[in-house]
């Protein structure tokens, strides 16, 4: 074997850094979408590798639905402060008031769809021409079809039939005024790659990724954290269980998994053994229809 060898995590890392630098080189006003979840935390870590000792050539932007886990929000604020990078937060609740939007009703009403309005308003407010996001192609079948530089029209819409071919490692970020590009530097990473990288790089995460006791409601085999945002009914089965989270989305549509995993090694062992996909196990919002994610993306969702 050659002495010049990169293992798979180093190859993925180098490719992601390359993509970050293409964004910095090609766009005037990019942004990094940062929620305090593990994928966007890895993005921030990769951005440090791409741009330090310089400042990030973009702010961190969080579209806060108002239904987030406090642990993730605290982590978000602390990390931004610690790095000395600019954090912009825009609230879906404000958009709902300003635009008089109608919220979903019912048991697991989610603000997932409304998040798109705030995202598009924020893009317009700051004239962002590129939004870097932590989506991965292994997450979901519509995501598997997405380019790394994904062009969106002035309504933020994704048209899967009009995607630009992506050749070699050459990314075409040219757009018309009003359009923007969603960029996904960790497209080629899987859930397990992310965890192995977090372990290798010793990256800190919000506590909810590790096993802890939480009051949850059992619904169709899924465990949803109780919160002020949740509609509780007399027939609901509520109990305290030891759980951790595989993904961190809204409290209203993200389920926990029962687990004793208290370290990253434990989590990796569990993920290797699991037979259910990350989103399948924990995302109630993907279950709405066969094409739920595809439809959200066509509407401008990241």
């Amino acid at each position, binding site marked *: *074997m*050659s002495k*010049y*060898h*990169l*293992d*798979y995590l180093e*190859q*993925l*890392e*180098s490719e992601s*850094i*390359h993509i970050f*630098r*293409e964004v*910095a*080189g090609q766009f005037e006003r990019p942004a990094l979408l940062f929620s305090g979840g593990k994928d966007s935390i890895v993005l921030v870590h990769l951005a*440090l*590798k*791409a*741009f*330090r*000792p*310089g*400042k990030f*050539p973009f702010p961190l932007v969080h579209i806060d639905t108002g239904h987030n886990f406090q642990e993730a929000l605290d982590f978000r604020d602390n990390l931004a402060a610690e790095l000395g990078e600019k954090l912009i937060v825009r609230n879906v609740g404000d958009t709902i008031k300003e635009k008089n939007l109608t919220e979903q009703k019912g048991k697991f009403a989610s603000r997932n769809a409304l998040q798109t309005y705030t995202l598009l308003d924020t893009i317009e407010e700051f004239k962002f021409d590129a939004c870097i996001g932590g989506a991965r*192609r*292994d997450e*979901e*079948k*519509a995501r*598997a*079809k997405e380019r790394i530089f994904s*062009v969106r029209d002035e309504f933020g819409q994704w048209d*899967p*039939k009009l*995607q*630009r*071919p*992506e*050749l*070699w*490692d*050459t990314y*075409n970020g*040219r*757009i018309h005024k009003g359009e923007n590009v969603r960029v996904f530097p960790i*497209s*080629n990473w*899987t859930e397990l*790659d992310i965890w192995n990288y977090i372990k290798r790089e010793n990256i800190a995460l919000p506590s909810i990724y590790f096993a802890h006791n939480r009051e949850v409601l059992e619904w169709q085999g899924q465990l949803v954290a109780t919160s002020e945002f949740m509609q509780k009914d007399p027939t609901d089965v509520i109990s305290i269980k030891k759980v951790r989270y595989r993904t961190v989305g809204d409290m209203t549509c993200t389920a926990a998994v029962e687990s004793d995993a208290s370290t990253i090694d434990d989590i990796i062992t569990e993920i290797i053994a*699991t*037979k*259910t*996909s990350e989103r*399948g196990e924990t995302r109630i919002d993907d279950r709405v229809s*066969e*094409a739920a994610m*595809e*439809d959200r993306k066509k509407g401008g969702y990241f």
Partner: protein
Amino acid sequence: MDILRFITAGSVDDGKSTLIGRLLYDSKSIMIDHLEAIEKQSKNKEEGEIDLALLTDGLRAEREQGITIDVAYKYFSTPKRKFIIADAPGHIQYTRNMVTGASNSDLAIILVDARHGVIEQTRRHSIIASLLNIPHVVVAINKMDLVDYSQDVYNNIVIDYSKVAESLGLKDITYIPISALNGDNIVDKSENISWYTGSCLLDILENVKLENDINYTDARFPVQYVIRPQTEELHDYRGYAGRVISGVYKKGDKIVVQPSGLESTISLIEIAGKPTEEAFAPQSVILHLEDDIDISRGDVIVKKDNQPSVENEVDALVCWMGNKPLVPGNKYILQINSRTVRAIVKEIEYKLDVNSLLELPAPEQASLNDIVKVKIKTASPIPFDSYKKLRVNGGAILIDETSNVTVGACMIQ
């Protein structure tokens, strides 16, 4: 553990999607919820048959129409390797999609239907694999179950294909008889094909040697971004951020910046803030130079004793991907790595017959999926290598200035 990127090439009925489904299924890379979803959609679910092809069609329109629209990427891994499959659709926009998927693949699996043998399609897949310079080819002779697992059928196809491979100069070729539908020789060796002494497909994919595919001789470093913190403590810091696309750089190397021709010496190499003695492909690094010279995005830092061509006129094979035709005289943007320049396609020299590799007379214009040899003139010189010699510095894209769409894949001669 490293990464193998591969593409599967086959026409609609060759069983391409079934093969990918089978690889994922037999290597236990499919999650139960995904399997349940396709079970629900499978037409013959009453007979207990799962349509593995459904795994690869991620879009509503694809499922509705039963066609594949665009390249999708699939992932699986074994303890030996991580695999990235570029799943390019077989029939619509054929050449364009295969070229896209092939552009960063290390290996191509070319599917041959055992009943039909080497056909025009097979030749076309192989020609594209050769034009794109894919280092490794696996010829998977599929549907062996439909020819009674006949060794003669297999042998004849191998003989036929060897002639194609020889005429194209394909080098590392492996043949394997399979049945994707039944799982013969995919992840486990087939008992039905006892006469075959080679490895199963997954074994081949796990063991293809990749380290020789990277060129460590011709050092090329396209500058993507200049890092200048301009803070008090880092007042003089000026780092050139980019990726070593080929070769090796060491501290003290004498370098030239192309196309300006300015010279200097590497004073420091950093990886993620830490100094390092040398940097090699495909690492993303930061280079520092002894002299403060004018360098910006799009410039290529090379070594003084090993330089690329620097020209403003190049010959290229272009796979046309635009819906609007390529008309000689039209202006485009040419992007090679991080460098973009305005370009004009001066003339079409000939059109390549992708079924025979024959040079056809130059058409007045090239249409979607055509491969043509053209002369391109650029507004300023570009540093490049011939694609055949150095894939990473010989591939470029053409962009339509008005629509901003990527319309051409260029392999510079």
